[in-house]
C-alpha cells in the first residue's frame, strides 16, 4: 500500500501550493490575498516536513539508554534508584545494534523558525493593509487603482 502512495504527499503539496498561489493571483482583496499567501507558505512547510520523514522513525528527541544497572533480562540489579549525573545519560542512536530510527531534524529546524518569521511578515502585510484602508477607504485593488487614476488626473490639472 505504501508503494502506491510514495509520491502522494508531493502531489497534494503541489495542489495546495497552486491553490494558495491562485488565491494570491486571482483575488483583488488584500486580506484574502494575505490569507492565500499564508496557505501557500504552509504548503511549503508540508513539503519540507514530508522530505524529512523517515518511515518507522520517531520524533528527533533522543531516547535515553535506560539499560544501565540492569542485567540482560531487564531485571534491575540495584534495589534503590540509580543516580546519574546530569549530562551523563547515554542516548540510543540509530545504528547496527539498535532498532530505533529518528526522523531528520534539519527540516524541522528550518521550518520552525520559518513559521515564526512567517507570522511576523504577515503582520507587516496586515499593517500595510490597515494603512491602505485608512487612506483609500477600501482594500479592493481595483478601487485603489481607480482612485489613484482619478487622483493623478486631478493632480496634474493643478
Amino acid at each position, binding site marked *: 500500500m505504501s508503494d502506491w502512495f510514495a509520491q502522494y504527499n508531493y502531489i497534494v503539496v503541489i495542489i495546495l501550493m497552486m491553490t494558495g498561489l491562485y488565491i494570491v493571483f486571482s483575488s483583488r482583496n488584500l486580506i484574502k490575498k494575505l490569507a492565500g499567501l499564508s496557505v501557500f507558505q504552509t504548503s511549503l512547510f508540508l513539503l519540507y516536513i514530508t522530505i524529512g520523514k523517515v518511515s518507522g522513525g520517531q*520524533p528527533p*528527541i533522543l531516547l535515553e539508554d535506560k539499560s544501565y544497572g540492569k542485567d540482560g533480562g531487564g531485571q534491575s540489579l540495584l534495589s534503590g534508584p540509580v543516580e546519574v549525573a546530569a*549530562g551523563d545519560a547515554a542516548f540510543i542512536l540509530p545504528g547496527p545494534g539498535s532498532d530505533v530510527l529518528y526522523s531528520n531534524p534539519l527540516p524541522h529546524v528550518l521550518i*520552525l*523558525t520559518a*513559521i*515564526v518569521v512567517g*507570522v*511576523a511578515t504577515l*503582520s507587516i502585510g*496586515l*499593517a500595510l493593509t*490597515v494603512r491602505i*484602508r*485608512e487612506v483609500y*477607504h477600501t482594500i479592493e485593488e481595483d478601487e485603489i487603482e481607480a482612485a489613484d487614476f482619478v487622483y493623478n488626473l486631478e493632480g496634474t490639472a493643478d
Partner: protein
Amino acid sequence: MSDPEAKFGRDPHVLLRVIAKFLIPLIALFAFYVQFHGDYGPGGGFQAGVILAASVILYALIFGLTEAKKAFPPRLIRYGMTLGVVLYGGTGVVNFILGGEFLNYSNLASDPAAGQHYGILAVELGVLITVTTVMIAIFYAFGSRQPETSNEDW
C-alpha cells in the same frame, strides 16, 4: 423566573472572565515550562514566546486593552524587543571575549557540554523575550487602532 441580572450583575461576560482569570496564569506557567523544558522535550524559545504572548492577548481580549496595558505596559515592549536581540548577540560576544568563536558556547564552562547547555539557555531566553514582546507589540498596535466602521455595520 428569577432575574439573571439581579443575580449576576450587568456583566454579560462574567463566566468568560472567571474562567479566563483561572486560565491565564496556567497559560503563562505552561509557557515557562515549554521554555525551560525545551532541551528535553518539544518546545523552546519560539513556542514559549508565542504562548506567553497569547496569555497577554487573551487577557486583552477578555478584560479590554486598557487593562492589558496596565498589566503589561507598552514601555516594556521597547526594552524587551531590544533586550532579547542583545541577549542573543551578547552571548556570542561573550564567547568572543572568552577566546572562542561567535556563538560557539563550548567555552562558557569548563566542560564543553555544560557550556553548550548554558549557551542554549541564554540564547533561548533571548528568543523568548524578543518573540513575546514583538507579538504583544503587534497585537497592541492592531488593537489600539480606531476602527473606521462601527460595529453596527457588520
